[in-house]
């Protein structure tokens, strides 16, 4: 369970997150929608301990993220996929994937590489293990990024606008993988601008507006006229997104 309670985060005088409460249970797929600057990415960065909280608590499977002693354990539970991939440019696709399992989990090299190759094959990159990130397309890079997160066998997958740097074709190839992971029962918390996709694969939709949780509803209800759409701000946001 990812447990977020009353989380507040400020950058200087600007409040980015303002008392956010959210729970993600194992097996759930929760998407976070909201305008740019609404605090979506910051929320992800708070969950994996990249930002210090100014208030509230976050725990992942009981490990408090805001306690430096428990942070490592909390981080082990979740895997993160980044908007701009953040692959290590000096390492091959395979090395990018095996680094953390070998260094952090002390998995033997042979086993780590076998698992990495299996992951790469599962995302259609069997032949690209020895390629460096600079030699891969954006979509391929993000698929490697997903493999890298999965290699740590996380209980939760945190995805931060993982397709927003990709063209529609590459977006489709990455979303197809995410849909498959969701179908396999992977727990996911993902920030996205792909409304249709969110509607398609998530159990719940959360809407952030200026650091506040405006809605946290089951997907069908969120998109229903008497549910999420009853809120003018959400209706306005969705209509703009579907037009573009």
């Amino acid at each position: 369970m990812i447990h977020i309670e009353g989380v507040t985060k400020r950058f200087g005088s600007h409040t980015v997150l303002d008392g956010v409460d959210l729970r993600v249970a194992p097996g759930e797929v929760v998407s976070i929608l909201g305008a740019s600057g609404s605090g979506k990415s910051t929320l992800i960065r708070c969950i994996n301990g990249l930002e210090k909280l100014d208030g509230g608590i976050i725990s992942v499977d009981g490990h408090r993220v805001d306690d430096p002693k428990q942070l490592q354990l909390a981080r082990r539970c979740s895997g993160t996929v980044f908007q701009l991939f953040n692959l290590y440019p000096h390492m091959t696709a395979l090395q990018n994937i095996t680094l953390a399992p070998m260094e952090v989990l002390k998995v033997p090299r042979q086993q780590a590489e076998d698992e990495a190759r299996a992951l790469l094959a599962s995302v259609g990159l069997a032949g690209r293990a020895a390629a460096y990130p600079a030699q891969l397309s954006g979509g391929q890079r993000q698929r490697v990024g997903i493999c890298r997160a999965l290699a740590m066998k996380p209980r939760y997958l945190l995805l931060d606008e993982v397709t927003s740097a990709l063209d529609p074709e590459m977006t489709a190839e990455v979303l197809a993988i995410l849909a498959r992971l969701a179908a396999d029962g992977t727990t996911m918390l993902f920030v996205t601008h792909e409304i249709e996709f969110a509607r398609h694969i998530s159990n719940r939709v959360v809407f952030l507006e200026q650091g506040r949780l405006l809605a946290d509803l089951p997907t069908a209800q969120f998109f229903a006229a008497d549910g999420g759409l009853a809120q003018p701000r959400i209706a306005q946001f969705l209509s703009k997104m579907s037009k573009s």
Partner: protein
Amino acid sequence: MRYADFTPHDLLLLLQGLGVSVALFAATTVIGLAIGLAWAVLRYYRTPLLAPLVAAVAELLKNSPVLVQLFLVFFGLPVLLETDLTPEQAALITLSGNTAAFIYVIAVSAIEAVGREQLETARVFGLSRWQTLRRIVAPQAAAFGLGPLTGLLVNQLQVTSLISVIGVVDLTKVGAILNLRTLKPFIVWTVIGLLYYLMARLIARVCARAEARLRAHSQWKGL
């Protein structure tokens, strides 16, 4: 009677001087690299007290003339510590310290050139600071730093010629000796200059090779 002509023995003398210059350059480079990189690691870990101290020492070393540092070590240190220092020892100490200061500066900026997002990613994946340094920062920083390092080393090679002033018989000192005996300054200094030039080119070449290897990952090999 004095010999004004070049003799085969002069070649030996030249080689000897060359050997001293190369040995001193190599030794001070190795020591300077070890010290300068160690200082940069102290800074990477933001070690209290030590990191600011190191920064201050590096500032002092890189903002004062090497010749003055050389005099301070050769003439000043023995007085302070009441010991004797050979010119070679003084040269080794001074140039190692000077090289270390500049390598520290290069290493610090090379480390800072590694993207912040990479450090964050490593942290999220649970890598320790040391693992991050070893596997993520160092390989990339090495590639960034090699260009400036090449420039530094070529310069430090030329700087070794200063040690002839305190009596180390290096290549420049041999030049001075030959010049005094033969009174053919144009030939002598041309040869000496050419030897430094060739060494500098060799250093640049070795560094360029190493850099190409370190940057192999960003070279286009076709999809």
